[in-house]
């Protein structure tokens, strides 16, 4: 119980630090919201009136906490270039980015765990070596290039999907999922390769330990030892990795959305950076950072559940 409180405390501190960091970063940009609204030719009097109205003259920490509170209650300001509330813009795009992320994550897990277990079992066979080499190669391909290869192979040679033919979830949900399979695959492949490699190394080193020999000497079958003993221990570092990967996937999807022209958070972020639409940029970055921190917290708690050795006393 004490460790959970400690974790929650660190979590709150991290949230404060990260949001403070995002807030400071956008405070540093030359020109404030008042100049952005009135243009550079505005009179100093008009500027100071608007600054007073927008609350820009309040002390730094007051502004930070008021931003933080309104952010948590869903008020993220108004988009400068579209004139609509940031909240409504982000809400309509959330299902897209979320589906893409979850789909990729499921693919990573579904691909890497069976392949890791099987290749470690048949470690010396040529097929296993070939999978290793393929894995090493996939890890070196940058995600956006992998996206292009997937577009070319599945879209233009095999005609399994129409590149650029994204269908939104509120138009046709089946087609929406069907389109997202390919970008998710492009995101998942290198992560799956890393996770497979990690699981394999982890299983191989666990198998050398004494408890495995003991289990065999008690007459357990190979399958039994693998699933009831080795895998339980070997999976722990993989879970850390998967947690980090989920955070990476969130960031990776930003780039892949651009390759497959999916109108999610990534494209919105890039357009908003080019348009200098800081309210949107700040909101997206804060949301993604929050997601990452929450994922880390969940992984941390999951450890304690999975590995009794970490529970302290």
């Amino acid at each position, binding site marked *: 119980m004490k460790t959970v409180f400690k974790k929650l405390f660190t979590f709150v*501190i*991290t949230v404060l*630090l*990260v949001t403070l*960091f*995002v807030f400071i*970063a*956008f405070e*540093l*940009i030359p020109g404030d919201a008042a100049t952005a609204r009135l243009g550079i030719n505005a009179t100093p009097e008009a500027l100071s009136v608007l600054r007073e109205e927008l609350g820009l003259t309040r002390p730094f920490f007051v502004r930070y906490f008021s931003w933080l509170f309104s952010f948590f209650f869903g008020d993220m300001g108004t988009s400068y270039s579209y004139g609509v509330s940031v909240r409504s813009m982000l809400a309509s795009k959330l299902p897209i980015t979320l589906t893409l992320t979850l789909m990729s994550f499921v693919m990573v897990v579904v691909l890497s765990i069976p392949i890791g277990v099987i290749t470690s079992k048949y470690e010396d066979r040529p097929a296993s070596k070939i999978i290793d080499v393929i894995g*090493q*190669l996939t*890890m*070196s*391909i*940058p*995600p*956006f*290039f992998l996206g*292009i*290869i997937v*577009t*070319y192979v599945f879209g*233009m040679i095999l005609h399994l999907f129409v*590149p650029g033919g994204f269908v939104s979830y509120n138009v046709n949900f089946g087609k929406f999922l069907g389109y997202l399979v390919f970008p998710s695959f492009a995101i998942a492949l290198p992560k799956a390769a890393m996770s497979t490699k990690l699981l394999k190394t982890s299983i191989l080193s666990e198998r050398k330990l004494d408890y495995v020999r003991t289990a065999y000497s008690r007459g357990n079958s190979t399958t039994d030892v693998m699933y009831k003993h080795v895998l339980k221990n070997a999976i722990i570092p993989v879970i850390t990795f998967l947690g980090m990967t989920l*955070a*990476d996937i*969130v*960031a*990776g999807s*930003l*780039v892949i959305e*651009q*390759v497959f022209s999916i109108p999610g958070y990534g494209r919105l*972020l*890039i357009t908003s*950076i*080019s348009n*200098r639409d*800081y309210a949107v*940029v700040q909101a997206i*970055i804060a949301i*993604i*950072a929050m997601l*990452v*921190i929450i994922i*880390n917290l969940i992984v941390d708690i999951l450890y304690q559940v999975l590995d009794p050795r970490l529970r302290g006393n």
Partner: protein
Amino acid sequence: MMKKLGFRFRKNPELYIGAAITGIMALIMVAGVLFSPYDPDAMDASSRFADPSFAHILGCDNFGRDLFARLSLGGATTLFIAVCTVLIGVTFGTIIGALTGYYGGAVDEILMRFNDAVLAFPSILLALVFISVFGSGTWKVIISLGIVFVPSFARIVRSEFMRCKNLDYVRSARLMGAKDIRIMFVHILPNTVPVVLSSAVIGFNNAVLAEAGMSFLGIGVQPPASSLGRMLSDAQAFLFSEPSYAIITGASIAIIVLGFSLLGDGLKKNA
């Protein structure tokens, strides 16, 4: 002599293969930038998407520019940005890591908490924050990525300093009356080189990927300058009609990354 080299190769093949790939790619790029008969920006409508030939070894792009000359220049830009980025990261990371690791205390606590918070950000996202603050362009990309790399190096150097500061050679240096600064930078620092070097190579790899990613998104290097990521994003538009343009450009990035990642693994094994 050959036998000895063969033995070393078998013991750490990643190191040698990685060094070979990296060396060859770097040589090709330097040769391409210095000796190519073509101006990488010279357009020629008659050779639009020309196939590879003796005149243009990798063919031409959508404006009839020699692809090999452009790839060399783009690759050189990418590598230049990566080198500067890692230099910024290593320099500031080493200074911060050395001071915090050696002295410890409250400043160390605060800086490391801040470090953790920054490391919780995926690096591309952090780079995007800085890009939106500074704006885009070659030098701004270098500064943005450089700042992103500082925390991870600071953490590595810090843990090395914490490990070394109580070892016998440091104690004896202290007994002989050496000043803290001397102990840090003359005695401890050389001992951290193997660890820092292997992480620098891995960092280099990430820098290449991050730069290519940002330029691909159109918020990195700005025209007329070019980099591999920017070229790949141009090439994507012609994926259907001229797939070789995208494939050659993407493969160059992948080979550079593969070389550095093998080299990094090899150095880590040696460290």
